[in-house]
């Protein structure tokens, strides 16, 4: 799944190297428009609905955090 997440990020912001950042939000790799786009990409690609309370910067800071968020959203959906 990590690969797929990196692909989504790369599509959103091709100009950045996401493997080089410890915190996508703090480092300014993702702005508010990107987060909104990313959420709809995740919801579409993984057929999940992300809870509004889970949409916090910590859950978008790294590939691992996004992976955990998708996992959590999947768990809640089933």
């Amino acid at each position, binding site marked *: 799944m990590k690969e797929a997440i990196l692909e989504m990020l*790369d*599509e*959103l*912001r*091709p*100009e950045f190297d996401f493997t080089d950042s410890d915190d996508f*939000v703090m480092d300014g790799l993702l*702005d*508010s*428009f*990107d*987060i*909104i*786009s990313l959420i*709809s990409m995740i919801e579409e690609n993984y057929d999940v609905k992300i*809870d*509004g*309370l889970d*949409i*916090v*910067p910590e859950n978008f800071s790294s590939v691992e955090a996004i992976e955990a968020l998708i996992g959590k959203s999947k768990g809640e959906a089933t």
Partner: protein
Amino acid sequence: MKSHMLDYFEETVKRRGNTAAVRHHDQEITFAGLQEKAEKLGTWLLSVLEGSVNTPVAVFLPKEIPTVIADLGILYSSNFFMNLDVKTPKERIGNILELVKPSAVVTSRKYAKALADTAVPVLLIDELDWTQLSQDHDALSARRQELIDTDPFCLINTSGSTGTPKGVVLNHRSFFDFMTVSNERFGFDGSEIIGSLSPVVFDIYDFELCMLMVNGSQLVLLDAMLAAFPARLLETLRDAEVSFIFWVPSIMVNIANMGLLDKIALPSLRLVWFAGEVFPTKQFLVWYDKLPDTTFANLYGPIEITLDCTYYVVEQRPEESEPLPIGIPYHNTDVILLNDQNQKCAVGEEGELCVRGTSLAMGYYNNPEKTAAAFTQNPLNTSYPELIYRTGDMAYRREDGNIMFKGRKDSLIKHMGYRIELGEIEHVIENDLKLVKYCCAVYQYARKEIVLYYQNDAELTDKDFRTALSKAFPAYMIPAVYVRMEELPRNTNGKIDRLLLKTQANEEA
């Protein structure tokens, strides 16, 4: 008699000197502190700008307390401010600076890098030693006496059709007008704590500055990033005891859809204004029902009219199937609906919404052709010169006097609160970047996405587009979806059939 916004500010400082004027995270500045720093900056600008009066001075800073100081400091120097978005690509900033030719740009060391190529003098606000700067109140006041109330207060850039934005010039008097009417209608008295979310390049931010200056309201600056994290945003509003917000609907729709108002209470929130886009009634009702003690008002007005020219206070629960009216004209502003024959529309008849009054902008800076096309003689008045602004918006008046918004005459859209001329996206892709042979951008309303249809021998990946476009456009102007067509549909005149593509994009959802 007051002829300058600072005349109001100085009275406010006398009243509220030691209370907080602006808060941002754990930082704050009092009204007196703000005046001191703004006067120091203004005094310094007097010498740096060698006595320029009534010239635009750009501000290239993120939305933080120094931005407010910079804006007021520029006003103190008897010039006017043009706020720029630090996220805007270098090339676009270059285009704006070239067109407007401001006398200087106020920025900080961190952001100055993006301005390396400009011929405009770059001033670093973070390297000023405030303890050493002199504060010449009398010199500043004396100079300000020479200004009149139709001199510019600020300049706001808005999407044009050629890759260079249009700079809208708004004067002091139009803001006095808007503040006077707003205070009368909504009872503002300076007790407001404003949750300021709009980017500094929006007119909403300029209104918030006026609330601070005229009424003594407090601004709580909310980071742009919060717009992506609605739960955090609501918690921040709650913790800061925000009583008034003026937002664009996009974010409010997200909050409603996520059901967050059930989870986070906003007991301090008294008044909510929204403008800039149509607020779908279904999501509006979530807000309306969850916050029964809050007053809601829908405002309407393009940037060429200071803030807004009509308003609708929601006094009874609207039907879900009914769109919200844009309401009735602001006092001292006249809204005229004109049909194709340039005659006044009858009740129920759809026509172009045109505006006359003090609220009109002075025009587009350094752009007489576009000014002349949008600000025209009132066709109902053949006796003396009188300008109206033609908004390009279609509307009709209901029996009860409320005006209903219908849509656009052209390809202008509102996306995330930003006004975008779709033609500008097409122009840059075809002519400047030469990415594809032909293209047509349309708006997908349900998903709030810009869709680009294009015709080209080779197929381009989304990544190709995004990489090229991110150098030319701010993020909100970059299409989300790219569709290659063998041939773009044409209408009988041989023009690309925008309407057909628009219908197609909106049917597919």
